[in-house]
């Protein structure tokens, strides 16, 4: 490749990048019947700020999207108060609202805004929240998600996860000219950024516990290689390119190690841990079957993983200290794989096969190990918990296309994230 071509290729990419991917749009496919009615009154804004970004609409959309709330339509509002003192509670009560959020966006200076908002219980007129967040124009979206997070937490007692992100793999084009992108978007699917692009497969993104980096597998050199990439700088490091398989990276809770899957010369896959600073490798499993898809426990002392040592794939747990014997956790169904632990470790989400279909199931880890199948698709894989544990994002197929979907951890709310182009797969929800 000669120089002008190189330059042109780079320019092409620079021009292309900001518009080469599509946003994901959330559709609630099954809402909660007893969703809490709430009114998010349009915030009073100086003209310029209002034109640039509608804070209260985003808060309203976030809450509705969670399935836990029913946001009142603006057209149904008979008045639009901007502070608590001017709320006519009886009116809002008559319109069947349990809660109301009022507020304003103030212009503090050039590119400096202040979001001031209050949350009231309509029934007893109690002021539950009064808060302000300042942001520049580019930060208004994030600040709006933070407002939604605070309202969500105040009412439900669970931290909101609207101001978090999701990493996923997007596949564009058709055989034999597919291209693969590793994308990081806001949790509502907006604001997608391509962090890595390749003509060879990309897979298995895993967030560092501080949310600053992603580990993933890239086949860009025609062989699987595990990379760690810092999101802010784009700087990346090749951490495993050993002979054979280099797969399924999973960050330890202290951020110092990766669990990953490597193979021996004769192709036996086992789980290892890799110390990122020293590059020291420790073998965790040693079995002729396929051992893969590791996931750490919160204390960093054990790993959940998939193994077909007993025939079909099942989920096991093993301590990382030498000599610990893996214990099998799943017995129902002949195919149970890719475990993901809920943030409070009360549940394990995984892929199970029932009636010939692959679906997302959860196992209760605190009680008797009851298993509940949450989804009804045919190709539901790659579950990943929201950092608050309230929802699971996963990959499914819709009319021959890979799409992402969400299900609440109790199975009551279901949503689909629709992309206008390409296939979307392997979602990984960021930490807080």
């Amino acid at each position: 490749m000669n120089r002008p071509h190189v330059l042109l290729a780079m320019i092409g990419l620079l021009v292309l990048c900001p518009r080469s991917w599509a946003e994901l749009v959330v559709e609630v496919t099954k809402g909660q019947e007893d969703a809490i009615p709430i009114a998010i009154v349009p915030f009073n804004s100086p003209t310029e700020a209002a034109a640039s970004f509608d804070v209260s609409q985003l808060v309203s959309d976030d809450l509705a999207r969670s399935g836990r709330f029913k946001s009142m339509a603006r057209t149904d509002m008979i008045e639009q108060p901007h502070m608590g003192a001017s709320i006519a509670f009886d009116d809002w009560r008559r319109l069947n609202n349990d809660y109301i959020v009022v507020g304003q966006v103030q212009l503090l200076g050039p590119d400096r805004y202040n979001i001031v908002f209050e949350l009231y219980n309509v029934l007893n007129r109690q002021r539950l929240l009064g808060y302000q967040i300042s942001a520049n124009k580019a930060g208004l979206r994030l600040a709006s998600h933070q407002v939604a997070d605070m309202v969500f937490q105040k009412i439900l007692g669970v931290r909101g996860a609207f101001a978090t992100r999701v990493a996923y793999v997007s596949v564009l084009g058709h055989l034999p000219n597919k291209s693969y992108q590793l994308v990081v978007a806001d949790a509502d699917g907006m604001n997608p950024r391509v962090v890595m692009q390749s003509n060879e497969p990309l897979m298995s993104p895993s967030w560092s516990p501080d949310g600053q980096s992603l580990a993933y597998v890239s086949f860009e050199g025609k062989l699987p290689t595990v990379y760690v990439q810092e999101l802010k700088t784009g700087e990346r490091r090749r951490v495993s390119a050993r002979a054979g398989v280099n797969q399924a990276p999973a960050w330890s809770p202290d951020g110092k190690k990766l669990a990953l899957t490597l193979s021996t010369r004769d192709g036996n896959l086992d789980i290892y841990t890799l110390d990122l600073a020293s590059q020291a490798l420790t073998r965790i499993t040693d079995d002729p079957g396929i051992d893969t898809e590791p996931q750490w426990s919160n204390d960093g002392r054990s790993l959940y993983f998939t193994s077909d040592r007993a025939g079909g794939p099942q989920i096991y747990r093993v301590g990382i200290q030498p000599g610990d014997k893996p214990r099998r956790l799943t017995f129902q169904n002949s195919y149970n794989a890719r475990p993901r632990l809920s943030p409070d470790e009360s549940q394990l989400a995984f892929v199970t096969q029932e009636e010939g279909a692959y679906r997302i199931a959860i196992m209760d880890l605190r009680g008797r190990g009851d298993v509940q199948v949450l989804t009804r698709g045919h190709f539901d894989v790659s579950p990943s918990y929201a950092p608050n544990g309230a929802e699971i994002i996963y990959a499914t197929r819709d009319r021959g296309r890979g799409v992402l979907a969400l299900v609440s951890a109790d199975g009551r709310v279901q949503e689909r994230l629709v992309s206008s182009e390409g296939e979307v797969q392997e979602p990984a929800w960021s930490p807080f």
Partner: protein
Amino acid sequence: MKRMITIACLLAGAVLLAGCPKKATTIQPPTAGSQVGDSSNTSPSGGASTSGGDLGGDNGRGEVGDATGPLARKVIYFDFDKSEIKPEYADIVKLGAQTLTGRPGLKMKLEGNTDQRGTREYNIGLGERRAQAVRRALLLQGVAETQITTVSFGAERPAAEGDDETAWAKNRRVELVYQR
């Protein structure tokens, strides 16, 4: 944010540049002078596959030495969730073994693949298991270990698109690729 996008783009550019693929070189097989055998019974759709392409258009016949002919890239197909080589593929293994033993400098990459069902990382394991099955068969026929490498793409590099058995059958495969 803009800065981040720029960096991401630059990085993507760098990766694309760095990743300009080294083409797997196809080599004239030693069995010169003969036509390569009919492979009508060696795949679900009755033809040897070109890389990741449509299976239907290739009837499996080609001049020896033709870089795009069936000897350049051979494909062995597998049953669902299986890694046993079916009897109808014995000829492909035998021909591969003869080629490799006759040319000790020649190398072969075995690319294991699965269909789209199941979890992605476990499928990497299944793809590797299939590649290893072919590797063992070649070793048993006298090929040196150093001539063979394996790679598993799991379900990531399908040969056919679609959510049905027709597509899946074409994807459960090991591709035998000669390399210099």
